[in-house]
């Protein structure tokens, strides 16, 4: 663990139904970074996010902000990790604003109709950051996929947690909204949040992430900047593809090209 690491894991392992989904993952991540978590289907990316947030029982240890996760009460964990699951699921047609306000739940604001000034300000900030202010009164079920994903992001921002864990926030979005979501997360990282994003889009990962973690069969096989983590060798070994590589406007471009 380096001195600047905000989130660190040692020997993290998860076994589900007798199968080792995650094995011996150790990592150390700093605040203000956008980290992309990539890997083939079934590599254990979602499980790693869950294990980091303490949502699945795991072996090994996680430290967040200097504290052992296992010793933190549920509510304190909830204040340190804002978790965005896949699919932006909402079961009832609630107003978008109430969904965003649920981000204040870990801070004791369990009723969106009774927010303190401080919580209301946090909700407004989050809605501004995700650009959903004008959607506040609309029911989430009436929103388009892109709008719903931004509301989900706003809910996550409203927690104002030092760590954001986002599971495929760009999946099922059109290209414009994918860029939109990644830029919003990038902005959050630039303000000091540690943002971990699971994605299948290596292009987005290479372009927006400071660090890329590559998972394969439940093991962390590479971590580092895009150039090393997504090297030709790694692409061949882990993803079994060849990629077209280039640079555009001084940013890395990776386009999956052919299977090996």
């Amino acid at each position, binding site marked *: 663990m380096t001195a600047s690491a905000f989130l660190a894991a040692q020997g993290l392992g998860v076994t589900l139904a007798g199968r080792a989904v995650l094995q011996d993952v150790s990592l150390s991540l700093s605040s203000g970074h956008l980290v992309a978590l990539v890997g083939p289907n079934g590599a254990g990316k979602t499980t790693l996010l869950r294990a980091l947030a303490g949502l699945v029982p795991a072996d090994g240890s996680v430290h967040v902000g200097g504290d052992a996760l296992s010793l933190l009460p549920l509510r304190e964990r909830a204040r340190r990790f804002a978790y965005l699951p896949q699919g932006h699921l909402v079961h009832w047609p609630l107003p978008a604003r*109430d969904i965003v306000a649920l981000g204040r739940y870990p801070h004791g604001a369990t009723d969106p109709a009774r927010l303190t000034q401080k919580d209301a300000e946090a909700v407004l900030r989050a809605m501004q950051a995700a650009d959903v202010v004008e959607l506040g009164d609309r029911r989430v079920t009436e929103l388009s996929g892109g709008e719903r994903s931004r509301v989900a992001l706003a809910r996550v921002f409203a927690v104002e947690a030092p760590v954001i864990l986002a599971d495929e926030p760009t999946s099922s979005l059109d290209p414009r909204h994918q860029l939109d979501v990644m830029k919003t997360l990038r902005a959050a990282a630039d303000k000091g949040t540690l943002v971990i994003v699971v994605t299948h889009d290596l292009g987005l990962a290479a372009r927006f992430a400071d660090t890329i973690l590559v998972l394969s069969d439940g093991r962390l096989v590479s971590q580092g900047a895009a150039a090393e983590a997504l090297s030709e060798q790694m692409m061949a070994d882990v993803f079994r593809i060849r990629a077209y590589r280039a640079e555009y406007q001084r940013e890395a471009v990776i386009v999956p090209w052919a299977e090996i």
Partner: protein
Amino acid sequence: MSIQHVMTTVDVAGRRRAGVMSALVVLVVLLLLASLGIGPVRLSPPTVLDALFGGGSDVQQVIVREIRLPRAILGFAIGAMLGLSGAALQGLLRNPLAAPSLFGAPQSAAFGAVLIIALGLADVRSYALPVAAIMAAFASVFVLLAIAGRNAGLLILILAGLAISSLAGAATALVMNLSSNPFVVLEIAFWLLGSLEDRSFRHVMLALPFIAVGAIILLSQRNAFRALSLGEETAQSLGVDVARLRLLVISGVALGVGGAVAVSGTIGFIGLVAPHLMRPLIGHDPARLLVPSALTGAALLLAADIAVRIIPSTSDIKVGVLTSIIGVPFFLYLIMRERRALGGGVA
């Protein structure tokens, strides 16, 4: 949108909810008065109030305070508990078709109580009855949620509920079948139809403590239902202990429904109907639906219990029969409305 705007939109919704709540309270009070006034001897509301607080003739006092008051109290408490249980289960499972009666909870509670009666372990006025009913109701909801697992779809819940209520019904039939005493069989059969007739304060004391504890447990979890709108995993990430919540809801529903069934028999579909009547008025927030659904449940059962006294018929219509006759078509209507979700398969 400014902070002020955020607050005012909430105010508008809040005022609307407050209006609905006041209307419900007025309705329930009127129905309580009507319940005290209607019967073989009709009493006007002023007479009822007078008799209730010690005025009027001795006969009027006996009628209002000893015959009709326990019945009205039970109608209110049991109806409220059923409405609350329905709203709580719908919140827990994020599913508009969840209700105690669809999950076999009252049927199982009835089996527990029937078993006690048939075995001659206790008479119908002993605390053994609600305790057995509560244990059976707890077991049924627990088994149902265990079978359904996390994030269960509509189809699994309904099928498992059907299986459990059929099993409870079959077990009850078996007990009646094997029972050698025809008087006991008749007693059980009438009681299974669900009724509030001829209930005394002894019955109120039998049911009310359990209903009250169950209601307090369910209401104490209301905000967790709101977090659950985002799914179990996200709720957990927001600090909700989902496993504990499930156990508390099962316990609350079992205590309330078990306590209710032990004195009234099975009264179905109020838990399903009440939250649906409130959603268009209150909104879909599962936390805010709890209390209005309870009041609606109380109003529904009080109204049904008044109706069975008014509807002219050769023999008494049992209130449980009436709620099912009205409730089942409503259930069919809901199935039609939720057809898409149901057709979506198991997931």
